[in-house]
């Protein structure tokens, strides 16, 4: 298989398989999780102002008082890496073109130099949070294989995409194919690991806020 055949495979068969597994996994897990249900809480609801599920969705994106100072790396690193990743994934012209092709939706792109900068910033933030995870004994103790693995499959698409654009190490064609392959790995892994928070994040925040509100816990 030569470079162009490799690229054509990842754009064709590979993408077909990856998107198939991704959709299968996402729908499976969404149905499974949201059909679980909870026991009815028979206690009389208490009233706590602003403790609704809806508020929690937003408030949990902000650090509670004092926490930013206690673990700045987690918060700032986390913000930079998530926002950077969103910019790189959703505002780079070739990516938008793929989304348009698959869903019909499209929006304006940002200049590729800016995307390039954001990719570097995102990777730097990811490395910082990884180093923090390794250095802090508590974080290291709490980390499992899944944490290291999901970090890697998230990091690889950014790294290979940036290296492809920068023409580093391998010819562009090969690097582009590796980039698409790494995204396919991410798609396959996403529904079955903690990366599924992409879909469950707001639902579980809303649920927690609702339960806490019922119990009278101000959020």
């Amino acid at each position, binding site marked *: 298989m*030569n*470079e*162009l*055949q490799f*690229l*054509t495979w990842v*754009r*064709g*068969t590979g*993408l*077909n*398989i990856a*998107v*198939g*597994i*991704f*959709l*299968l*996994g*996402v*729908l*499976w*897990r*969404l*149905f*499974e999780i949201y*059909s*679980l*249900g909870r026991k009815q809480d028979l206690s009389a609801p208490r009233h706590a102002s602003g403790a609704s599920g809806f508020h929690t969705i937003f408030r949990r994106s902000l650090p509670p008082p004092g926490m930013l100072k206690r673990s700045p790396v987690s918060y700032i690193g986390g913000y930079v890496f998530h926002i950077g990743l969103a910019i790189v994934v959703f505002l780079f*012209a*070739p*990516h938008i*073109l*793929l989304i348009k*092709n*698959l869903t019909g939706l499209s929006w*304006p*792109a*940002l*200049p*590729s*130099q800016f995307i390039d900068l954001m990719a570097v910033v995102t990777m730097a933030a990811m490395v910082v949070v990884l180093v923090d995870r390794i250095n802090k004994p508590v974080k290291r103790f709490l980390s499992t294989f899944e944490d290291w693995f999901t970090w890697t499959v998230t990091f690889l698409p950014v790294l290979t995409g940036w290296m492809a654009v920068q*023409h580093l190490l391998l*010819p*562009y*064609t090969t690097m*582009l194919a590796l980039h698409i392959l790494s995204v396919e790995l991410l798609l396959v892994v996403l529904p079955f690991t903690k990366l599924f928070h992409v879909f469950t994040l707001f639902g579980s925040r809303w649920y927690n806020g609702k339960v806490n509100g019922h119990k009278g816990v101000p959020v």
Partner: protein
Amino acid sequence: MERSDTLQEKMEQNGMSRRTFIKYCASLASLMALPPSAAYAMAEALGKAKRPSVIWLPFQECTGCTESITRSHSPSIEGMIFDMISLDYQETLMAAAGHQAEEALHAAMKENYGKYVLIIDGSVATGLDGAYSCIAGRSNLESLKEAAKGAAAIIALGSCASFGGIPKANPNPTGAVAVSDIIKDKPIVNIPGCPPIPVVITGVLAQFLTFGTLPELDKLGRPKAVYGETIHDRCYRRPFYDQGKFAKTFDDEGARQGWCLFELGCKGPVTYNACATTKWNDSTSFPIESGHGCIGCSEPDFWDAGGFYKALSMPADPLKMAATAAVAGAAVGVAISFANRAKKGAAKSAHETTKLEDLEK
């Protein structure tokens, strides 16, 4: 024309000054990424060189490569240089035909054994023992093996000879392969392109005649000097790509403004060739300059690379599994949720109330 004519003499007959010739050699040297001093050495050597024997065998081809080299520059310097090699066999260009042509071929092979340059255009059919493509009752496969034996070097001209090209496209009915798939013991230079750029072949020939060497090749056997960079990286429309300005159709405002053709399927980013720098038709323009995206014709298997009008970041094939997978996923999820509910129900009905007496037991 006498066989022993040197290039210098022939050029003088054609009214070309030495100055023009040296300028030409300088451009060839720079094309092949040789040092500037090589231009004089090249002019000297080329000037004194006897017309080297070149045998050009056409296999499964469309004559586009011949058209490219003979027509586009006539009567340019490249065309003249081409007149000056001793093209002993080229079906399209030679006057002889039939048995005469075959005799000319065999005479040239015998006379220049071990010294001639063999140019192949077209892929080699291997299906049915090569019977899909025959000349004078012999298969291309047989002719290639025979002609390659006495060749000093082989130039695989065009994408078909270099990589199998269009005849090799899926489903490849003739079992077409590249020259390098058959011949393993001779130096082979691949000059892919559909057709390749004319000046590249004169450049390779000039280097071979001057220094007796072939240009430095990449791992696909292509001269690095020509195929070292992508069309995209050398494209004059590249700034538009970086700014995110794309033509969406071939006749919209973006197309008229000359914006990037990436969204219209341009394969420039994955195509290694010199079109954007050497250009075509005596440096007039190249496909992207004429408003059409690059189709990647000099890359192996470009014909099967997912369609000329699909952008590189688009799926090469429709995602056929998506709908089935989504339905299957939903079905699995629903099945599991029913199983979970059944489990919960069973647990509930198996629940026993603990009474005070039970604790005192």
